[in-house]
């Protein structure tokens, strides 16, 4: 087993729920300081992989390595100070305000008896500012728009103050404007020096924002690398069963996937 070059990596990782195997013998590396996006068709194991990287899901076999050591072998508070997670459907407690929610992200930095410190409050303020929510701090989360609410959850993960940030489908259920809002925020967090890992559905958004792509099909990695190198018509066909033409995005020069009509046509 070779020592990983990056902080977060997997070795022979097999994952599943009950007796259903979802991911098999996976070897991935999350490049440090990358914006890594995991893509693939529904049910390919993207979210399962992310949950394992965040040690929410225990591997059936194999390991997730954090700094070269099995992630479960680190003290859980240490992991929580290193890897932040925004799960797919977190629960909003009744009546909670944005600032309160973000404050709960400080949990791994507090003891059982220690009250909120000025430093905690300063971090919360900074996270609200980073997500452009400073003016909405005292509003109930339930009164926010979808995009604002997602930003509030990202701010909560940010308040964890971790170098790595894992986001499970942060754009799902948002309309396009709010999707871009959230992705721009991720890009800013990446530019500020964090390693960001996100599961996304939209291939073009992945191509546009990611610095590193991991493409999954039926629980196996079929391609990884920079979007320019990875996204080809052949790969889109293999990963999604979709015929497509790839052109350079006129705005960014990144690959842009144009889906073609499926070959099965009704008479």
């Amino acid at each position, binding site marked *: 087993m070779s020592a990983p070059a990056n902080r977060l990596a997997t070795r022979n990782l097999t994952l599943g729920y009950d007796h259903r195997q979802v991911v098999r013998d996976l070897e991935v590396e999350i490049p440090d300081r990358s914006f890594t996006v995991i893509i693939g068709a529904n049910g390919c194991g993207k979210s399962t992989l992310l*949950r394992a990287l965040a040690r*929410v899901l225990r591997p059936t076999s194999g390991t997730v390595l954090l700094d070269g050591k099995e992630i479960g072998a680190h003290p859980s508070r240490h992991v929580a100070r290193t890897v932040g997670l925004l*799960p797919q459907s977190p629960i909003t407690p009744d009546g909670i305000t944005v600032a309160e929610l973000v404050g*709960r992200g400080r949990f791994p930095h507090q003891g059982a008896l220690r009250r909120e410190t000025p430093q905690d409050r300063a971090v919360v303020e900074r996270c609200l500012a980073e997500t452009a929510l400073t003016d909405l701090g005292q509003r109930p989360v339930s009164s926010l728009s979808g995009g604002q609410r997602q930003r509030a959850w990202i701010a909560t993960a940010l308040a964890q103050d971790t170098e790595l940030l894992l986001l499970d489908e942060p754009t799902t259920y948002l309309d396009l404007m709010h999707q871009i809002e959230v992705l721009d925020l991720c890009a800013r967090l990446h530019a500020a020096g964090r390693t960001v890992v996100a599961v996304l559905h939209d291939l073009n958004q992945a191509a546009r924002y990611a610095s590193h792509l991991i493409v999954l099909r039926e629980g196996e990695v079929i391609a990884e690398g920079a979007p320019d190198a990875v996204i080809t018509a052949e790969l889109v066909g293999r990963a999604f069963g979709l015929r497509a033409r790839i052109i350079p995005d006129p705005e960014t020069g990144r690959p842009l996937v144009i889906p073609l009509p499926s070959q099965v046509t009704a008479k």
Partner: protein
Amino acid sequence: MSPTMKRSVGVSVVFVALAAVAAFATVDIGQFSGGITEADAFIINQLLLPRILTAVLAGASLALAGAVFQSVTRNPLGSPDVLGFTQGAATGALVGIMAFGGGALVVAVSAWIGAVGSGVTIYLVARRGGVTGGARLILVGIGIAAILSAVNEYLITRANIVDAAAATVWITGSLDGSTWSGVVILAAVTFLLAPCLLLTSRSLRVLELGDDLAIGLGLGVEKVRLLTLTGAVLLAATAASQTGPVAFLALCAPHLARRLTRRTGPNLVPTLLLGAALMLWADYISQHAIPNRVLPAGVVTGVLGGGYLVYLLAHQRKTGQI
């Protein structure tokens, strides 16, 4: 101190004041203005003081247990009444009354065993793959509660009329049988467990955000769930073994406390204080509501608590929350 924190402290002080007023009303200080006779002293020391202390300790325990259940199950209906511990305590008490003669200590012990036994059963059945989901706890609890209710009704139909009457009063919940020995047991359990549960407050707030996020924040979610549920079941079982399962107190107190403090999270301290105040007032009202007729305190909490629950549901429906 933040404004919500200030409000929380203010509301808690009001709860303590309400409890104190109810306690003084129960003793009815005014009647002793002409000096205290020996008989008065006996009534105060042997009847009223244990009664007041039992109300305070059992009310606080039940309310605190209710707040923990609601937080852990992430369900506003999570309470001993819904989860089946109440019914388990009643089954135990019925067995104690019918099979073992019904002495106060025997009934208390058998009710305690019934409540803890049903708690353990529900936890084990709801646990799957090492995870005890909140929704599963509620559903399994409702199922076990239904089975135990049927068993209880069967036992009552089999009982002789004296036992059946005693059992019915016990199941409704009453402070009539309060004794100093009961107070000592309650105090020991409450002073041991309540502080432990209060310390889990921050963990419970994180657990409310969902298992995945809580694990991401470094919380051992199953450990926290097991420890807090154990503490809450032991508190509720001990309180119920002394007073009977006082209906709805554990369900309402956390809701009312949260509404008054306007704070999210389990609100453990205000809930505990409110539980004590509610129990004292329920007992006072039950003794004075109908002249010359004393009701069990559980009748009052049942009527008021049930009414409040209906109000809550109607209100939530109006605001589109359910």
